[in-house]
Structures are given as structure tokens and as C-alpha cells.
């Protein structure tokens, strides 16, 4: 889609690369934010990923694959950031949200809070797989290619992530039922 810009950037044209950043930055930032669940960390990861992409761009052979290649770079950087942060975040206690839950046809605020907690407990790779599949829309075979893992591994990790997220919602539902009957 942006082949001319990619080609120019690959040849060292910094302006072309900055144009690519402007064109794709929003989507990339959104992906980073979904994986890391934190605006500052998402921004740091995106900046790092873009600089790495600039550095390594001459090694990209198939210019039409730039977008997927960029997602690969970003995902690996996000996984690295999430891995480094995971221990610290795991020790944080997420405070309950006060006040009434806003109406939502699919998810209440409490549901979102539970999903967020469950998501943060996932391994960084599992988070990335969920985001790449449900948010970006990649097929499992594409994700396997992006992460350099066998498709079967991706499938089992996605399954595990689904179960964890489902369990979080079920636990919340049980708590809510129990609470209302008390």
C-alpha cells in the first residue's frame, strides 16, 4: 500500500519513513496500547519499535509486507516491555472502581475491570496473540508467522488466553449473583 514510501525509506530517506510513521502510527499505537494496557509504556514501545524498524528496514525483502513486518517488530518490542514490567505489575493491587457501572450492552465497567485484570495476568505472548487476533484481525497462521512460532503453539496459547478471560468473566458473574442473593 505504501510501497513507494517504504522503498524510499529503505534507501535512507528519513522523510519517507516519517511519512510512514504518520500514516501508520495511530494503528500501531493502538496495538501497543492494547498489549501493554498503559499509555506511557505503549508510547515508549512504539518509539523503540519505530527506531528498530528504521534501523532494520534495509533487510526487509518484500516491500509489500511492510505492514505485517512492522507489526512483528512492534509485537516483539511490546512483549519485551511487558515481560520486563510483568513482575512489578503483578504485585500491584487493582482497586475496585467506585460508583455505578455505566450501561453497556455487552460489557459493564466491572466486566471490563475483570477482563483487564485477567488480561494483565496473561503471559505477554498470550496478550499479543489475543490482540493480534481479535483487534488486528490476523489469522492464527499469520500470527505464527509474525511471532516465529508453530501454528499449533499459537492455537493452544490462544485457547489458554480465552479460557483465562472467560474464567475472569464467569468469576465476576458468580460474585455478582452471590452478592445479590446475600
Amino acid at each position, binding site marked *: 500500500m505504501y510501497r513507494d514510501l517504504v522503498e524510499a525509506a529503505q534507501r535512507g*530517506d*528519513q522523510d519517507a519513513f516519517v511519512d510512514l510513521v504518520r500514516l501508520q502510527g*495511530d494503528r500501531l499505537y493502538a496495538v501497543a496500547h492494547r498489549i501493554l494496557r498503559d499509555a506511557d509504556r505503549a508510547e515508549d514501545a512504539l518509539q523503540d519499535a519505530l527506531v528498530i524498524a528504521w534501523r532494520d528496514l534495509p533487510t526487509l525483502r518484500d516491500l509489500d509486507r511492510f505492514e505485517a513486518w512492522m507489526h512483528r517488530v512492534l509485537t516483539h518490542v511490546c512483549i519485551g516491555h511487558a515481560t520486563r514490567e510483568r513482575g512489578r505489575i503483578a504485585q500491584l493491587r487493582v482497586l475496585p472502581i467506585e460508583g455505578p457501572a455505566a450501561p453497556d450492552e455487552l460489557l459493564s465497567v466491572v466486566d471490563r475491570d475483570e477482563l483487564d485484570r485477567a488480561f494483565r495476568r496473561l503471559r505477554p505472548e498470550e496478550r499479543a496473540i489475543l490482540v493480534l487476533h481479535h483487534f488486528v484481525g490476523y489469522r492464527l497462521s499469520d500470527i505464527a508467522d509474525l511471532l516465529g512460532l508453530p501454528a499449533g503453539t499459537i492455537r493452544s496459547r490462544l485457547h489458554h488466553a*480465552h479460557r483465562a478471560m*472467560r474464567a475472569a468473566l464467569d468469576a465476576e458473574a458468580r460474585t455478582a449473583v452471590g452478592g445479590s442473593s446475600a
Partner: protein
Amino acid sequence: MNERSDIDRLLGHWLDDGPSTMPDHVVHVVTFRIARQRQRSASRLDWRRYTWIPTFKLVATMVAVAVVAVIGYNLVPRGSNAIIGGQPTASPSTPSPTATPSVEVIGECVDPVSKCRGALAAGTYGSREFGAALTYAVPSGWVNNIDRFRAFGLGSDEGYIGLMTGPFVVGWADSDCPGYAPAGAGSTATEVVASLSRDPRLLIAPAQVLSIGDRTAEVLDIQIAPSWTGTCISSEGLPAVNVLSTTGDRSGPGFGLAGTERTRAIFLDVGETVVAINIGISDANADFESFVAEAMTIIESMRFGP
């Protein structure tokens, strides 16, 4: 609805809800960082030999934009996001269909809209597009990476020599470095030197005189004054000065400094215009003085057309 499609739908809904706009300053920071990050060489290319004219990154943007306008290509300025006195526009701009004119790009010439020669064997060469009709002699290891009407560049592994033609403006203003008031720098080399010497943001040694062929040039060694603390967004907290530009905004060539960067700037009258030459290192490990000494032998070999 089965359990799988239910969780698919919930997760999709949950993930869709969140920020989807990259903060504006990411572009500035990335622009600053990639100007200092060399690209890896691929087997089919060797990018290590490349460098751009600018020190403080913005010039690369400017060169890419300005010359195109000067030569008359109908190009939407890429990376240009501010005008003097105006509000910065954050919306991305893309090249028009005419943004990639058919020009000769040879060897390792890095500038896609240019007639630069790329890697140079030791010898004497002439510019192809540069308005001041330049000839110059280089040893091996140098690259001609820009050759446009108002900008010309030579680079080595360690640094660069950038040339641009006047008229000039002291500084430039844009969304990256807001709040400055660009001012005309005069129409002769002596006037430009005087304008820069009055800039309180800069620490400049008294001008030296240099002969380049039968022309007399004035030489300034420039760095940021210790008292200057102003920053630009992309300078990541370092003091920054947008030293000289051709248009007062990002739409033309120019150069700037950040942190402890130094540059040697040389000015000479050529016909009705002024040629500005600036020397800087692009490799943080390079020795500035040694590189300047090497660059000066090339500059002293330069001759300009009538």
C-alpha cells in the same frame, strides 16, 4: 450463541474500546532518534556510507521538501507541519502523484529526488543540479548524497559537508521549535555572519577568513551558548537551536544544533547569492576536529560557477 463466539465478541468489543491516536510528539521523537540511528546494511546495499546534510535532524526533512518546491515539482510538503505564526497541523500529508519525479539516481545516492552521484572514487567532480555550479575534489570514502538546486551534500562514515544557497533566515519556527521569531539574515556573506554572530543562543568564535579559489569566505565555529536552555520537542530535553534556514520554516534546507553538537559554517558570496557550507559529524564517536580538518581539504578544493 456458543461459548467461543461469545468470548470472541466480548474480546473484540473490549479491545476496540481504547485510545487509537498516536500522541503527536511521537513523530518528533522518532524523527530525532532516526537521524542518529544508522540503518543496517543489507547484502545488496551498504548504507553505512550515507549521511544527510543536517545535524539537528530537521534539515533532512527540509531538504526533502524544499528543493522539490524550488525545482517546481508539484509536491505536497512531506513532514512539513507548521507555518510561521500559524497553528501546527498534525494531519499526515502524503506525496501527490507527481511527488516522485523521474530523476537520475546513481549508485548509493540516498536522496530519492535528486541527481546526486552516490559513492565517489577519489577524483574531481561537478554538481549536476546545485545552483552554484560546484566542482570539488574528494579522496576515496565519500558519497555525494544530495544534489538539488539549493542543497548539496557530501558524506563519509564520520560526518558530512552540506551546502545551501541563500537568501537565508536566522532560525526557523515550526511546531517542533515553537516560539522563535525567524529574521532575515542579509544578502551577503558578511551580513549573514553578522546576523548569526548576534544570535544570543549561539556561542561563536570570531570569524576567520578563508580563500576558496579566488573567492574569500568567512568561517564560523558554532555551538550552543551555555546560557541557552531552550529546547525543541524532538531534542528530548537537550538545548536546541535552529540556526539557519532558507525559508524560515521546514519547507527549505537549513541546519541546527542540539546539546553539545558543534558545526563549522563557511559563507561566501557567489554571484548574486550567498553559499553556506556547514560541517558536522554524524558518528558520535568521530573526532570533530579531525573530521573538520579532512573536510576542509575538500572545501578548499571547491570552485563555484560564475
